[in-house]
Structures are given as structure tokens and as C-alpha cells.
């Protein structure tokens, strides 16, 4: 008995011995600073006034003053807006990761030796053609380098199969952030960067075509956009009302998806450059919404449904529709402004105007999308892809066999088998991406734009840093961090509450 007890004590001591360094590290570098920052958030701690050189002055408790100041500061909302803007990336990155995982889960080396050789030969041929064309065109060294790298991947993938691609896709994730940001800075160079070097000749051709065409023809694109938005909205509302009627969507669960579905039309009625277009979109959206609501209110559900049911599916569908509508809205506005943008004038002997590629990081309007695009590149091949790859291997093969027997098409198999089976993984990825999105953006802003121009790329995390270490207001900066925590916590709770329902739907 005593021997057994001694052994247990010894095992416990050994276990604790192993764990102690980690526990100590966790306590020293995580728990204690966390508690400390919580206390600081309620104090007036200012590095300039309270530090080891000023023992006579000590910080004092200020209650919720820091939080009040923060929430009444317009900058906070601006930086929150920037952070949320970057987070609009999340659906796309998740979609990208899923597509990558689906592609990489295929066996690229399968088939006969003959077909493998054919694939390799085709890849080499394509790569050679691209490189020869670029060299013949006199493209810049940077463009040739980037395209050459792309071709190497193509040929490497053909030779090495999915293992090569899996490694390559995961590469951005384990490459140092700052190094990739510097690379992107080169890519975004407004003159010699490969992105603009590719865009500029295309835009020049568009410019010539636009200048040769009657402007009213091009501006008609705005009206086409209104028709398309109306059509999408109609489809969306029809789908929602069908879901409601069939008992797949509860009366409470319809509210938020409906809001997202109609939001682009509301915004378009503010953004469109001419009054007639603004009125038209408002009327179209208003009529469609009124008819749908009338139908929902006056008709009865054919099958019983709980008020909160079907929220997840409807929300995903409406968010997707919303994004498409926003894209069409943007295209419509661009079409209307295109003739004016393509016009060229001579100023002090220098040609000005015309269509040119974006100034990316130095332009207020383009800096955010530029960073977003870069984030997208980094995120598609990240842990999300690995999680999806792992989840895909866990989908039972019998389900696909059953779908095959039922004669399901590849899309139907994806939609009815793969996607539902991946729901828990998607849920986890969404939660983690939202947390990461709210906390992120610091390295990117610090390396590429310093938060500028005019604060366009300043995120909450970057702002916490500047408040804490540039102005020295540690208390205020901590309150900033805790408000961020509260947001992360609330969103995660929201996700758990509604997301888990979606996972189980």
C-alpha cells in the first residue's frame, strides 16, 4: 500500500517537474500580465508620470474613465471600421482554403505513367511559352521573376504531385510575416511592380476603347447594374420566402438574413452618382421587399417551424447574395464614371488623367483593399487549409457511394455531403478567423503603411501599440485592449450560440 502511495507521489512529482517550466512561463508571460493589464485599464497609469524614476507619483484608480473616453473617441470607431473592413476577407479566405483543400485532397499522381508524363510535358510546355512570351515582350525583371516562380511551381507540382502543392500552399504560413510583407511591397510598387505592370497595358487598351466609344453607351452600365441587383434581390427574396413557406426558416431567423440581403440596395440608393438611378434602385428594392413581406405576413407556413430554425443556412445564403450585389453596385458606379476617368489632358507638358493602375499602398482608397488582398493570399494556405484537408479525410466514403447510387452530380455531392460534413470544421475556422481578424493587422500596418495614409490602415491592435508606447498612456491603452477582448468574447459567444445551431442544422 505504502509502495503504491510512494509511487503515486513520485509520479506526481515527476509530472509536476515536467509541467513546472511551462506553468511558470504561462504565469509569468500570460496570466500575470493579463491580470496586470486588467488593473491598468482602470487606472490613469501614464508612462511619463508613473515609473521607477518618479516614486512620489503613483497611478490611481479612475473607474471606467478610460473606457468612457475610448467609447467617445471617434478614432476608436474609425479603427474599428478598418478592422472590420479587413475582416470582410474572412468568407473569401475560408472559401479559398476550402477550394485549395478540395483540390489538394485529389491524388494528382494517380493514373498511368503515360498520363503522368503527359501532365509533366504539358506543364513544361506551358511554362516555357509563358517565359518566352514575357522575355519577348521585354517585361521587367521582377515580372519575369514572379512568373518564373509560378512556372516552377507548375512544373514542380506536375513532377511531385499534391505533396509539392500542399507544401507550397502552406509556405506563406510558415514564412516570416515581415519578409512576405516586404515582398508584397515590391509587388504593389505602382510603377515597377508586377501587379501594375500587368494591369497598366490592359487599362491602356480599355482607355483607348472607352475614349473611342460614346460615353452614354458605357454609362448605361449603371442601369444594367440596377437590373442585375434587382434580379439578385428578387431571387434572394423568393428563396427566403420559399424556405419560410416550406418550414425551413423560422419567423425570427428570417430578420437578419433579410437585412443583409436588402442592405446593398439601400447603400446603392445612397452611392449611385445620379438621382434617377438612386430613386430607381430604391423603388425596385422597396417594391420587391414590400411584396415579399406582404406574402410572408398574409400566407401561412405549410409546415411547422420553430422561430429560430434555419438561421445559419439563410444567413450564409444572404451574405453571399449581399457580396454579389455589392460587387455589381461597384461595377455600375465604375461604368458610369469610366468615360471621365479615361479622359486625358496635357498639363505643363505632362500627360495627366487616363486609366492607370491603382497607387495601392499610398492611396487612401486602395491601401485597405491592398492589405486585404495580401491577407487573403496568406490565409488561403494557412492552418484553415490543413484543417479542411484533415476534415475531408474524415468524411465517410459510404455517403459518397450512396450519393453516387442516387445519381448526384459533383456539385450536389459537395453541397449535400461534403459541406454538411465539414460544418464543425467550418464553424471552428470561422470562430478562430474572427478572433484573429479582430486582433490582427499590427505587423501589416507597421511594416507596409505605418497605419496610413490618413489612418486608413490603422487597426485596433496597431492603435493599442501607438497609444501605449508612443504616447505612454498605458492605462488607456489597456482599456483599449480589454474593449477588444470584450468584442472578441461577444462575437465568439454569438458564434457559439448561433453557429453551433447552424452546425447542427
Amino acid at each position: 500500500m505504502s509502495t503504491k502511495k510512494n509511487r503515486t507521489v513520485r509520479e506526481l512529482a515527476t509530472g509536476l517537474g515536467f509541467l513546472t517550466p511551462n506553468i511558470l512561463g504561462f504565469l509569468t508571460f500570460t496570466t500575470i500580465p493579463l491580470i496586470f493589464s486588467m488593473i491598468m485599464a482602470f487606472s490613469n497609469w501614464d508612462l511619463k508620470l508613473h515609473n521607477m524614476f518618479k516614486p512620489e507619483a503613483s497611478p490611481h484608480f479612475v473607474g471606467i474613465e478610460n473606457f468612457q473616453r475610448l467609447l467617445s473617441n471617434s478614432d476608436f470607431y474609425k479603427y474599428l471600421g478598418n478592422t472590420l473592413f479587413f475582416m470582410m476577407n474572412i468568407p473569401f479566405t475560408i472559401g479559398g482554403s476550402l477550394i485549395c483543400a478540395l483540390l489538394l485532397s485529389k491524388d494528382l499522381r494517380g493514373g498511368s505513367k503515360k498520363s503522368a508524363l503527359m501532365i509533366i510535358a504539358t506543364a513544361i510546355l506551358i511554362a516555357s511559352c509563358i517565359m518566352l512570351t514575357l522575355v519577348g515582350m521585354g517585361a521587367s525583371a521582377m515580372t519575369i521573376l514572379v512568373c518564373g516562380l509560378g512556372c516552377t511551381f507548375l512544373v514542380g507540382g506536375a513532377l511531385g504531385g499534391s505533396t509539392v502543392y500542399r507544401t507550397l500552399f502552406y509556405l506563406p504560413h510558415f514564412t516570416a510575416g515581415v519578409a512576405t510583407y516586404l515582398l508584397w511591397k515590391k509587388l504593389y510598387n505602382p510603377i515597377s511592380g508586377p501587379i501594375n505592370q500587368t494591369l497598366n497595358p490592359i487599362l491602356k487598351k480599355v482607355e483607348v476603347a472607352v475614349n473611342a466609344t460614346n460615353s452614354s453607351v458605357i454609362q448605361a452600365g449603371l442601369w444594367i447594374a440596377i437590373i442585375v441587383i434587382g434580379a439578385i434581390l428578387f431571387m434572394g427574396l423568393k428563396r427566403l420566402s420559399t424556405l419560410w413557406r416550406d418550414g425551413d426558416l423560422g419567423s425570427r431567423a428570417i430578420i437578419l438574413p433579410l437585412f443583409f440581403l436588402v442592405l446593398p440596395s439601400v447603400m446603392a440608393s445612397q452611392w449611385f452618382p445620379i438621382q434617377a438611378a438612386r430613386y430607381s434602385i430604391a423603388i425596385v428594392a422597396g417594391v420587391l421587399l414590400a411584396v415579399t413581406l406582404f406574402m410572408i405576413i398574409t400566407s401561412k407556413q405549410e409546415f411547422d417551424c420553430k422561430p429560430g430554425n434555419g438561421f445559419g443556412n439563410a444567413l450564409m445564403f444572404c451574405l453571399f447574395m449581399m457580396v454579389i450585389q455589392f460587387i455589381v453596385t461597384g461595377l455600375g458606379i465604375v461604368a458610369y464614371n469610366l468615360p471621365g476617368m479615361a479622359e486625358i489632358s496635357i498639363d505643363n507638358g505632362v500627360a495627366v488623367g487616363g486609366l492607370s493602375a491603382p497607387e495601392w499602398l499610398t492611396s487612401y482608397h486602395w491601401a485597405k483593399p491592398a492589405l486585404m488582398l495580401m491577407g487573403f493570399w496568406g490565409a488561403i494556405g494557412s492552418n484553415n487549409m490543413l484543417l479542411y484537408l484533415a476534415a475531408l479525410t474524415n468524411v465517410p466514403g459510404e455517403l459518397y457511394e450512396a450519393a453516387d447510387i442516387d445519381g448526384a452530380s459533383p456539385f450536389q455531392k459537395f453541397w449535400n455531403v461534403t459541406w454538411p460534413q465539414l460544418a464543425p470544421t467550418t464553424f471552428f475556422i470561422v470562430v478562430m478567423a474572427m478572433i484573429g481578424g479582430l486582433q490582427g493587422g499590427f505587423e501589416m500596418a507597421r511594416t507596409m503603411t505605418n497605419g496610413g495614409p490618413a489612418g486608413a490602415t490603422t487597426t485596433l491592435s496597431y492603435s493599442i501599440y501607438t497609444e501605449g508606447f508612443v504616447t505612454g498612456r498605458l492605462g488607456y491603452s489597456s482599456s483599449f485592449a480589454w474593449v477588444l477582448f470584450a468584442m472578441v468574447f461577444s462575437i465568439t459567444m454569438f458564434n457559439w450560440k448561433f453557429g453551433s445551431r447552424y452546425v447542427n442544422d
Partner: protein
Amino acid sequence: MKYLFMCVFALLACASVATWNMLPTTQFKEPTIYWVTDPNPARVEQIAIFQRWLKKDPSRPEMRVLVDAANSRKEKKVIQGVSGVGGDTMDMAGGTDMRYFNAIGLIAPVTETAHKLGYDVSTTWEPIRPLIAQDGEQYLYPCNVAVRMLWVDYNQFDELNVERPPHRWDWDTFERIGREYVQKANEGKSHQDRFMLHSIDTETLYRSLGLACFDETLSFCQLEDPRYIKALEKKYQWMYDDHITPTAAEQSGFDVEAGYGGPQIFLFGQGNYAMFIMGRYSLIRLRQIQQARLDAGKPMMKLDVIEPPHGGFPTTRCNTRALGIYAGGKNIELAKTFQSYLASEDYNMQIVRDADALPPNPKYVNTLAWDKPLPLLPTQTEIIFPYEEDEKNLLSNFRIDFYEKLDKIDRESEWSLQKDLPRPPKPAKMSDEDYQKALAEFDALYMASMPVYKSEWGMHDRFTDLMENIALPGDITPYCVPETVSMEIKNAEDEYINNRATAKDAAKRAADRINAEIQRTLEENPDIKPQYEKARADQKKIDELKAAGKKIPASLIQNPFYLRYYKVQGMLEEEE
């Protein structure tokens, strides 16, 4: 497993002990201090000179100085400093950093020691003094002093048959020459790749209209003034309408690595910019560019420095990289010895020769070596010609002789090393063969580099002239963190440049936000309220005097810009 764990633990313990023993501070028997500075290669030479300087006076303590270039960022200095592990001595941007570091209590006052060791504020340039001392207490001493000038390559103007910019010019002349330059330089090109000037800061523009960021008592931001709006509009016009200076996108479009001093020096050498604004330290890279051109058989740049264009009141900005002593350090007295070295002839002459801006002590610019820098000063000839102690008179005679002859040669004149300049005499213990070899080394060095150095002759005095007459430090208010001010101004200007606000709205935004920041600082730190209230009362008196058209007593003014401005305008009442 537990044995493996114990082994790893023991291994880590041994590695820690080994690392401790390899620390630079444990390598020397003398006490060691750290110098937190930038990774400039010149620091190695400056420390070597310091070690020699220490030995010249036996009363000086034995010590070692080690460069810490990894912690030169301001945030690092602050965090390490308040944690009790700051570097013994730290470089900082004079004025802005000093006030912030001093507000924290990070830097030790040195007034008494500076007076005793001969490096008090009176030994440095007058405009710089407010940047190293605060409220009558000295904290820093300059490592070097920079005055911002326009560097110009006249060849670029001559090639295009465009009038050369004059040494002093107003905005109209700048625009006229600029428009002609960019038009001729970019004729027939698909996109503009040549600009007359790299960039110009808004502060220089509005100051030349007689406006400073803060009022006379530094207690109120007055950027809402129409003169600031005019400066913003000019900057925009030169960028977007006249294309004299590049936009931010055009600047980044050049895609060159920065290197020391920034990419503009390289682009200036390439001909993309005909002018750029920077201090004398640009010469460190310009000399390399000139040498590369010389080696490649290309014509050298015809360099000169001129004043920034003005809107009525010629002015430019000056600043200093200055050394402060960490108040929490263990070697404060040794650090003060190192600080005093910055005022020595040895250090100052190194700055003069190396062209690392202006020397901290202005008396060293009154030397021939200042106006006619050489690739190898006669003082360094000892390295090639090792004279014995009793032969030192040979060396001093050679120096005198050398400078006398050098005085007769100017930038344009032809010269020969053998005929026009003397060469060092032979040390007694040196064999004839070695002497010939040393002479060949000496000649080769001069022949290869002298044209580069000679191309600068005659313009160094202009730095001195401008430093003494038109250079002024930036405005620094004691009522808020300087970084906040620059951040707000940058954001407001970005808003205007990106067409998100009019110049008027941008100016109002900047002024309002900076003034709000001042009020917030006063709320947070009531101790400075009495000082602020006194400043506001003084400002009221100043405003009344201005309205009545009367002279303003110098004692009421705290802003160095207005002291100079009113003096030039004849509006200053100077008191005893």
C-alpha cells in the same frame, strides 16, 4: 524520460554560464558602458578615437564603450529604461526625444559636470541649445548637428539648358525653374521619371510665411491659420499640378533600397531628382556615388547646397542627434566622461572629416579642414608613416606646410601632389624601400579620392552660414507628446493630399486635435497647469502688443522661431 529532462536542464544551465562569460562586459577588465546608437559604421572609428582620447589625459578613467545598435528604436529605449535596464548612454533626436525622455525621468541632468568638463550648452550652436536643455538644465550634448539644405547637381540643369537655381529663391522662382525643368527633362516620355525636387516639408513652407506650428508661448497650435492652408495648397500644387515634386506613389514607384540617408540620395545620383533636401551627412553617400562615377569614367556631379524656396522669410530646419545619459544606469560618471568626449577636438575633427553633419562644437568649423576636407588628414598620416616620439616635430611641420599649400588651391584649380602639396618626410627607422612604398600608398590614396573631396570644396561654409543665420529647430510644445503632434499633422495632410478634405478642413482638423491633446495632457498632469496658465497669460499680452503694433519683449517668447522672426522683422524688444 526524467534523466533526459535532467540532461537538458544541465545543458541549458551550462549554456547560460557560457553565454554569460561571453558577454562583452565580462570580456574587459575595465568597466564597460553601452552606447545605444544607430548602426553607422563610423561609430567604430569614433570609439577607437575615444579610446585614444582617454589615454591623452591620465586623469580620465579607464573604461570601454560598446555600441548597442539593436535597441536604438525609441519604444525600446523607453521600455528598457523604465524597466531599469536601459543603455548607459543613448542617442536621441534632440528636442523631441529629450522632452519625452525627460518627462519620464529617463535621462540624467548634466549641467554641473558639463560646465566642469567644458561641454556646457554655450559650446554648441545657438539654435540647437533649446534642444539639449530644458528649464535651465542641460541633459544632452550633440553627437552631430544637421541643417536641412537643398542639395543640387548643376549638371542636370546645364544639360537641359535650364537656369541654375540661385542660392536664395522665392516660391515664384522655384515654380518657374521647376516647371521648365520637369517639362524639358521628361519630354517624350510615357511617364515622368525626373523631378526637380524630391520633397519639401510643409513646416519649412509655412514658416517661410512667418507662421509656426505653435504660438509664441508654445501653448496653442495655430495651424488653422491661412498661411498653413496656403503652404498645404502649394505643396499639393507642386506635386499634382506642376509635377515639380513626386507624389507619394511616384516616390515609392522608384523601387530602390534605402541605404544610409534614404533612397533619394541614390535617385539624385541617378538623375531622377535634380535636388533633395537633407543635412551635410548626405555627403557620406554622395562621396561614394562621386567615387563610383570617377572610377567608371563618368562626369562627376557638380554639387552645391542652396536654401529651400521661401515665401518671404528664408528659413530652414535644424536638429541634432544628441547623447543623453540613462538616469538608472550604474556608470553615470563614466557616461559623463564619454559625453564630454563629444566636445573634444578629436571627436569634432572626425565629424568634420567624415562629413557626418556639422560638428557639435562650432569652433571646429573655423578650420581649413572644414572647408577643404581631405581623404586622409595629415593627422592620420601616422598610420602610414610610423614616427617615433622624438620625430613628432617632423609631423607637425609637415601639417603646417601641407595646410599652407592647400590654402592656395581651390575647387577649380589644377594641382599635382608632388608639385603643389608636400608629402610626409621619412621616419628615421623606416627603410628607403618601405618609405617609397608608404609614399606610393599615400599618393595612391590622394590621387584616387582627392577629386571627390575637392568637388565639395567651397560649399561647407554655406552650412555654417545657414546654421548661424536661418536655421531653426522645429516647434516643440511642453504640453503634449511631440509624436502626437507630428502624427496629427501627417494624418491631416494625408487627408488633404488624398482629396478627402479641403486644405482648410485639414488645417482645422490638425489644429483642433492638437489643441484637444494639449487639454488632455493638462487634465492628466495638473502639475504643468500653472506653467500653462502663465504661458496663456503671456500670450494674451503678446497678442495685445501685436494688435497695438508694439514690439514684443523677448522674455515673453518661448518659441525659438518667433524670437528669430520678430528680431528679423524688427518687432523684438531685446532685454538685458
